[in-house]
């Protein structure tokens, strides 16, 4: 379980290149470093639910990122906060 304040990197992984998939991690965050804000609960993995496969419960987090480097738009202090499943995060 990741604690609030933990620095994390979103895995730079592209299941889209390997065949049919359902991914909830937006492309613009792959490889990005952010900070865990809170654990939102554990939920069945939608990547399996989407194919009607048995789905393990996985932790879901609010993770916050600096906005400007993501879209090269915005001001210092602007932030992007996204829900990301734990299996997409590695400690940074």
């Amino acid at each position, binding site marked *: 379980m990741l604690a*609030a304040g933990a620095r994390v990197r979103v895995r730079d992984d592209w299941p889209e*290149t390997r065949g049919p998939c359902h991914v909830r991690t*937006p*492309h613009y965050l792959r490889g990005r470093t952010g*900070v865990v804000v809170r654990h939102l609960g554990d939920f069945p993995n939608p990547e399996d639910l989407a194919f009607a496969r048995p789905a393990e419960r996985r932790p879901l987090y609010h993770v916050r990122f*600096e906005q400007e*480097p993501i879209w090269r738009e915005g001001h210092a202090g602007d*932030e992007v906060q996204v829900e990301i499943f734990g299996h997409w995060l590695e400690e940074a």
Partner: protein
Amino acid sequence: MTAARHPGYPLPVDENANQTPPEDRPRARHDLGGVSRFMCEPVDTAPHALTAFDRQVDALRQILGMKGIMSVDELRRGVEALTEAEYFGLSYYQRWMRAISATLLRKSVITEAELRNTLSEMP
């Protein structure tokens, strides 16, 4: 430098992140965040009137969910599997209907023949 709005969580500076433009990334076509064509015009946030078709598709999806035949995750996966021409050519609920019919065919809840016959009987 403006002070962060959330001083409890100083955000890391992400200097080494991948800067490949969205157009060049192997993203799925529905994964549109930051794609330039959608950054040049404001998002249409006006409420859209629902047609009778829209309501029927929504009701069908809810019934399939309640009966455990098809989840919203399967619906989303089905919408994401549409070809680019279909994805951008169909309305929101038309996309849903395509995803629902493809899922029900794949799971053998309905057959191709049943779908074809039903469509041919429609006015």
